[in-house]
């Protein structure tokens, strides 16, 4: 569950090692923590996810990007046990879907077992436990609590010590995430961004080997984004593997060691951030030609840029007319 044997992290070394890899979808990593083999998910006739092979490097920050509806969240749900692949092995008959985490096969595990194996996730739409205090939200995230056994629970001395440790740990984390002042407030009263922070802090209570963040930055103000970025980097430096879905390309470029691009359920590219972002397929499928220009920036709004855009629009219109 916990990663006591901290992965020796050296970003430069890791990057150097990753940069030696061939940057094609499904490439084998030197030390994968998560390895996925052919998982498919269909909703009616629509194929939401069809991933042939994917490995996630231990100790690295991997970003999963892609247009809306690309199947990123469904993919998260599948590997964390919140959804079952359409080609899963069933009692009668079965498919070839297989994935393993930390050497443990997770084909038929439930969501809670996946979490206990050390793969803790957050949700795109935050799931704060509204009518519980922030501290209680945190404590529920802790693992190996004897007091969660019905027969031990009524006898406080049996779990009081563990509870005290958990409270200390929770308070530490809350300070790190600047939520310590809100400790006794109901989680439902927090703002959207604070709920995101709480959810992330809560996921860290069990010292997961890998944390999976589903759009951690959505709806978080810039100052908080900065501190979230720092938290994520700090996590990695402590040896936690991070896999996250994000639309903010600045953030992806800034902190990720490896980028995986999904479109229409398939992985269309993976590689180092710089390489992937300049790949034509990714630009076409997701980023768009002007992804590195800030549309709100004064500089970008200069006449030259506007003219370029105007010409392009005119070109497109002409094409349509034709």
């Amino acid at each position, binding site marked *: 569950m916990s990663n006591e044997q901290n992965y020796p992290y050296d970003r430069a070394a890791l990057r150097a090692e990753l940069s030696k890899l061939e940057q094609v979808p499904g490439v084998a990593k030197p030390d994968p923590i998560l390895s996925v083999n052919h998982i498919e998910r269909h909703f009616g006739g629509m194929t939401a996810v069809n991933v042939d092979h994917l490995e996630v490097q231990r100790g690295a920050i991997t970003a999963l990007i892609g247009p809306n509806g690309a199947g990123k969240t469904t993919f998260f749900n599948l590997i964390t046990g919140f959804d079952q692949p359409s080609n899963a092995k069933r009692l009668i008959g079965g498919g070839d879907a297989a994935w393993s985490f930390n050497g443990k096969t997770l084909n038929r595990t439930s969501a809670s077992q996946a979490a206990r194996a050390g793969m*803790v996730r957050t949700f795109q739409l935050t*799931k704060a436990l509204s*009518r519980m205090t922030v501290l209680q939200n945190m404590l529920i995230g802790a693992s190996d609590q004897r007091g*969660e056994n*019905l027969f031990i629970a009524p006898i406080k001395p049996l779990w009081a010590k563990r509870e005290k440790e958990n409270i200390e740990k929770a308070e530490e984390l809350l300070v790190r995430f600047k939520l310590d002042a809100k400790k006794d407030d*109901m989680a439902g009263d927090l703002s959207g961004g604070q709920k995101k922070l709480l959810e992330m802090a809560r996921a860290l209570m*069990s010292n997961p080997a890998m944390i999976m963040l589903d759009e951690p930055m959505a709806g978080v103000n810039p100052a908080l984004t900065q501190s979230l970025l720092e938290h994520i980097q700090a996590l990695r430096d402590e040896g936690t593997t991070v896999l996250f879905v994000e639309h903010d390309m600045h953030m992806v470029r800034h902190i990720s060691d490896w980028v995986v691009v999904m479109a229409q359920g398939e992985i269309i590219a993976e590689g180092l951030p710089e390489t992937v972002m300049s790949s034509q397929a990714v630009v076409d499928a997701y980023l768009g030609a002007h992804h590195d220009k800030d549309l709100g920036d004064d500089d970008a709004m200069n006449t030259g840029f506007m003219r370029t855009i105007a010409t392009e629009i005119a070109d497109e219109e002409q094409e349509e007319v034709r």
Partner: protein
Amino acid sequence: MDFWTDLLISILQTLISPTTAAFVIAAIGLNIHFGFTGLMNMGQAGFMLMGAYGFGVSVSYLGLGFWPALLVAILAAVVFAVILGIPTLKLRGDYLAIVTIAAAEILRMIFKMSLLSDVTGGPLGIHSKEYRGPFTELSFLPDGSTTILGITYQNNGGNDWWVRLVAWALVLVFILLTWLLVRSPWGRVLKGIREDEDAVRSLGKNTFSYKMQALILGGIMGAFGGIVMTLPSSMQPDMMGRPLTFNIWMIILLGGAATIFGPLLGTLLFFIVRIALTTVAGEFVPREVLSAAQTEQLAWVLVGVALMLLVIFRPQGILGNKKELSFNV
């Protein structure tokens, strides 16, 4: 004796009656289901039936002693909870409500079947003298009768002090147990499930198992409620039908769901207000305007109005915390 003393005594009698205690015990169980875990159990009466008949039939038909019969009653409630839980606890909350209300009705019908009248007594039920023996034998009270605050009952036998003593001791035990459990990490997981099951699953808790534990525990309390209710006089299937379930629900909402003392306060108020209403109306409203039967019905109408007002103006119940309100309209 004048009218007000009579009223006071009849209120006192209601307050300590085993039926009131049975309501409190069943409500504490339902509070574990709904208040703390968010399970919409609409068949608490079914658990009470399981308890009452599990105990009654074990003694009257199988001739078991008190403790084995009690064990049978508890096991019956556990089996009922497991049968209800396995298909529904993995689904959305509403399904549990549908299945529990149907299952409780099915049970009532089964116990009512004249085919089974050798065992369950059919629609007539079983008289308490058939199954009370082993319970009365446990009593340490001396024979005779005792008067406390103008209320006189026999010490042992029938509608006696011994049942009252045990019933309210059970209330105390279950309130204490609930308090101990709710403050523990176990209770925290239950509340987490009530708030958002997926979040709790993502944190590595087996929510199905916790929901099953809650359903079983609350169900066992329901079974005890059923036994306590039927010890004084008799058991019939129709005593424990839908109206009973709905009254227990109302008690929970009145007292405050997800509170420790809510079920107790709710039950006491529920009974006092009805007794006071019918007695006062019977005394001061002329017979031509309202007959005795009509006052009884009027009391129920007022109970309904009170419930509506409660839900609109104080949805968290009397003891509930507004921030932790369980009944959102």
